[in-house]
């Protein structure tokens, strides 16, 4: 015998509260420091003329861009318009996706009938269908919202359907023994079992909604953050563009975070952020 393995309480066991608090602090610090580092590098590379500061406005000039837009009153307007559109579109699309996803996940006949068709539609470039939407829903916000909804719908639909199909048969069998009807099966088994995967899909779709919003606002809108970005680009007001891009990123991040937090409310039974291999 040449080695001795020792199992001792680690810091997490000896000081659970302190360790947890420390980890939370570390997490926040790391999460903040990486973007900060990025911003610093970006600024530095502009200062040291590694990159052309006109083409890539340094962060220090974003403040100026924000101030300008703020004074003109366009910043708040654009943000509000965009946020309203994205939230409405997302809610609509996600609801439809959840509904259809569950129906198709639960019925193989529906799946056989509509899966190929839906996959085909999934890759139809929605922006190319814009004229049709404009004709049907008019040139107002409705078209934008509907187009976002349609895009979001497909992403949610796929996630939900796959998640429902992946629910282990054992769970369904136990409910069948309790004579669960389709509704009960949905309510007590499929929905909660699929929820973790569904929320991954919903988070992905939150990002997609924001990306689609920007895409649409590039093309048709005279409002919103996408318009700010696009206008900045065509007018070579790159500061304005970058302000818009950063704002969109922040909104997208907050939106995805919101979806994650809502998910945590619903999925209380599962530990959320475990280290898989301690590191």
């Amino acid at each position, binding site marked *: 015998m040449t080695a001795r393995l020792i199992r001792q309480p680690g810091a997490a066991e000896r000081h659970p509260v302190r360790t947890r608090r420390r980890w939370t602090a570390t997490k926040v610090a790391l999460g903040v420091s990486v973007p900060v580092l990025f911003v610093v590098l970006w600024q530095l590379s502009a200062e040291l003329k590694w990159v052309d500061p006109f083409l890539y406005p340094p962060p220090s000039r974003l403040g100026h861009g924000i101030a300008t837009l703020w004074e003109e009153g366009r910043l708040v307007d654009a943000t509000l318009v965009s946020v309203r559109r994205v939230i409405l579109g997302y809610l609509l699309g996600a609801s439809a996706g959840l509904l259809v996803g569950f129906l198709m996940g639960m019925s193989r006949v529906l799946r056989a009938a509509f899966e190929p068709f839906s996959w085909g539609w999934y890759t139809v470039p929605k922006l190319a269908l814009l004229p049709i939407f404009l004709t049907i829903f008019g040139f107002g916000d409705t078209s934008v919202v509907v187009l976002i909804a349609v895009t979001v719908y497909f992403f949610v639909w796929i996630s939900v359907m796959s998640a429902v199909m992946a629910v282990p048969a*054992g769970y369904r069998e136990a409910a069948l023994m309790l004579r669960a009807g389709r509704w009960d099966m949905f309510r007590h088994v499929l929905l909660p079992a699929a929820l973790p995967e569904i929320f991954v899909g919903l988070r992905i779709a939150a990002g997609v909604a924001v990306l689609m919003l920007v895409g649409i606002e590039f093309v048709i809108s005279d409002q919103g953050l996408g318009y700010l970005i696009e206008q900045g680009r065509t007018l070579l007001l790159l500061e304005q563009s970058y302000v818009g891009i950063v704002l969109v990123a922040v909104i997208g991040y907050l939106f995805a975070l919101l979806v994650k937090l809502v998910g945590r409310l619903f999925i209380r039974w599962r530990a959320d952020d475990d280290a898989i291999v301690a590191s």
Partner: protein
Amino acid sequence: MKHVAPLTDVDTAADAAPAAPQRIAVRQATRSFVAGRRAKVDALGPLDLSIGDAEFLCVVGPSGCGKSTLLKIIAGLLAPSSGEVAIEVSGDSRIPIAMVFQDYGIYPWKTVRANVDLGLRLSGRPIAERREIVNDWLGRLGLTDFADAYPGALSGGMRQRVSIARALAIDPEVLLMDEPFAALDAQLREVLQDELLAIWQARRRTVVFVTHSLEEALLLGDRVVVMSARPGRIIADITVPFERPRSGAVRTDPLFAKLRGDLWASLHSEVVAQFDTGRQK
């Protein structure tokens, strides 16, 4: 009320009901599985079995012989490959058949309480009544402290107890139990065996009880059937002569040892046969 069980048809009875108070009739049931590109596996039968109303039937047999498969067929979760199973139910109760699964089958997203409550909830019982029943069962199975815990925080035995509580709380006409006490310590096992006997003796339900313990089978059952190695057929069918109400004391009865010996003998050749096949290859 007419409830359509999955994979099955419901006949209103009295068309060809047998004279004897028979609850479950298994006729020439077989089941085979095809998994991927592997050869067909004959898991069960052909098997004939008749289970009387209010009978406590224990099923023993070598591992992998088709006991769980048989239970699933009776439960209606799996269709037989051939043959037929008929189960008489009163039609009064919302959930006539309850099952304790070998792998527990409880839901990680529901607390212990919600898991036990589920069957009652689905059968639409009033909430106050449900609460009482659930608390009662949680107490009997020693789970009161963990009523609000999620199954992820339970030990193996505790999970199995949740599964038992859920099935018993329904108070079904037919109770199918697939090695319900396997993960429990000897003491708890005895406590629950007594509990089960008490319940069963108070109001007689039909119980099909799969176990690996010959003692348990003899202690609990009116009848013990022994299944052969895969594909499982019935190779012995023993009526247990001990009087009800029984207690653990029957273990010391010489007849108990004899019956156990009989069961053992009928099983032993099966197991040995199975292993010889394995080893020679």
